[in-house]
């Protein structure tokens, strides 16, 4: 091929490299980078923060696919809920500053290899696979429609799962209370006092 054609193609590429593309790559970088750092960093508190970034990046992806509602839920529940919960528990177990012990190299290597292999496998399958879009017109995914559909009992109504998940939340709540509550029974007294002292101790250090 002659140089001219080459230049043309390259130019096309540069032109079509639009803003949205750049945004996507940035988001992907945030998500994956955050994830990677979260699972590799030796400081537990930092890895929590990296997790936070990664989750936010994911929320960004949802925005990017203009599912604003989901993105909002993601931010509220994950960023506002889970990560905070995790951070609190990190404080409770007062290992915020400490380095985590390094796992055995063999395990790291094996896990890495396995993960890579799996990734390669799945990626290959996904590439080879032919996805068939339904081609149906996109429906509105706004908060309103989602809410109404969530509570409807008609076709595509999600009332039953909604109820079930509410039961689940109830159960989880009760479970947490029972487990985490400071029991007064003599049987577990010592352990509890111990842990209470530690807990306060931790918060004081904070």
């Amino acid at each position, binding site marked *: 091929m002659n140089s001219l054609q080459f230049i043309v193609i390259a130019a096309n590429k540069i032109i079509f490299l639009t803003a949205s593309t750049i945004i996507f790559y940035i988001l992907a970088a945030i998500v994956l980078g955050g994830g990677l750092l979260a699972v590799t960093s030796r400081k537990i508190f930092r890895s929590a923060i990296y997790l936070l970034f990664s989750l936010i990046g994911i929320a960004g992806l949802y925005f990017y696919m203009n599912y604003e509602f989901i993105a909002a839920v993601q931010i509220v529940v994950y960023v506002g809920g889970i990560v905070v919960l995790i951070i609190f528990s990190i404080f409770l177990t007062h290992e915020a500053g400490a380095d985590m012990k390094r796992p055995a190299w063999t395990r790291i290597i094996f896990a890495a290899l396995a993960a890579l292999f799996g990734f390669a496998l799945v990626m290959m399958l996904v590439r080879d696979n032919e996805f068939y879009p339904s081609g149906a017109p996109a429906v509105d995914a706004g908060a309103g429609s989602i809410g109404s559909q969530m509570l409807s009992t008609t076709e595509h109504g999600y009332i039953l799962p909604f109820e079930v998940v509410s039961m689940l939340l109830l*159960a989880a709540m009760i479970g947490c209370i*029972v487990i985490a509550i400071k029991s007064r029974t003599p049987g577990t007294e010592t352990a509890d006092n111990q842990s209470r002292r530690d807990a306060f101790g931790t918060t004081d250090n904070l």
Partner: protein
Amino acid sequence: MSLDFFILMKQELFLTLIIFVLLTLKVVDGIKKNPTVIHFTNFLLLVNFILGFLGNKEGELFSGMFHTNGILAVEKSILNLGTLIISMQAFDWLKDHKHVYEFYILLLCTLLGMFFMISSNNFLMFYLGLELSSIPLAALVNFDLGKLRSSEGAVKMILSSAFASGIMLFGISILYGTTGTLNFSEMQPYLTGNKLQLLGFIFIFSGFAFKLSSVPFHLWTADVYEGAPVSVTSYLSVISKGSVVFVLVSVLYSLFRNWEGVWYNVLFFSIVLTITVGNLFAIRQYNIKRFLAFSSITQVGYILLGMTAGNAMGTTSSIYFMIVYVFSNLGAFGVIALVSTQTGKESINDLKGFYANNRSLSWVMALSLFSLAGIPPTAGFFGKMFLVTAGAAKGNFILVGIAVLNMVISLYYYLRVVKAIFVDKNENPLPKLNGSMSLNIALIICVLGVLAVGFASGSFEYIHSLVAQAPP
């Protein structure tokens, strides 16, 4: 809201009702005495059990989120009965436990989850039911609040089950991506069996295998069983396992029925692994709960063997075996529950010379173990026989041969326990244990079940007719 709604969901609704009643009682502190609570709940469970046999009909609700028919209702009733027996056996443990209300609420929530999972016709409902039946269970495992092993088991369970359900979800998402729906009956025709879908199936299956604790996804089982309170262990080993069995049967036979060739191989592979490895581990256990954990792993192997038939016989034998399994396993666990709550001993060596002071308990234990080993005249023999027969229907005698020869090994370790109880000498054997009335009743029920279910072919015939007219 038609009347159908109440008829079809009667068990779920009644169960939810029980939960809320208990919740209210807890809030207003209605009943002070634990025993009363226990008996009250047991009564309600009994009612629910009976409810399972009244006016069953086939039907769908919420656009396929929920579907039920006779056989599904029976499956639920089996689980219900098991829960009832367990809660009767838990009496001695619960009667001075300060979280009895919570215990029941969590327990029943998991049961509710299983019900929804069983009658789910949709991956979403399936997933929700699964989680509803496993997350509170983790909390229950941790219910011996004082005990370290209890919480260790709980951690192991919640984390690994979260991981497992993560992988399973990934599989589900793949199937969703390749078929565009989550509803089983809509999805089924789209399962063309291309490689990606197979991948999804494998991921989903490994989730199931995790819950069933079939090798190599079984490793959490023993630790969790050992750590959990005995009643919870028995619940794990019988009820939650049973529910997954039921679902797996219906999923394999309805959703993945085009892929029989595939999942037959998958089952073949895991059966051989499961039975063999389970036996090999069970041989050398000394903690009785761990021992029963591995034995239950082996049993799962046999259940899967029954499933390989891929016809009504397979379904029937699996369900029938679950009934048998409920009685036999709970019989054994009942004795263990009594021993461990009254003496805190959980080792097989502690059972040496058990027969000296506890004649009837020893016989209950022995009968249950024989039934687990599949020795006549107990029901276990029939259960095993039908599973093996179903497994042989495909004419794969290598598989059946491996399974059958493994029976010998399993007989060995069951007899080890029997030997400890009846034969071995012990200078200071366990004292005479007298359990509460409700525990004894539960044990009697188990023994009757173990003896009767086999001889009286009624249950088998009933299930078979239901399966024949409406496959789950």
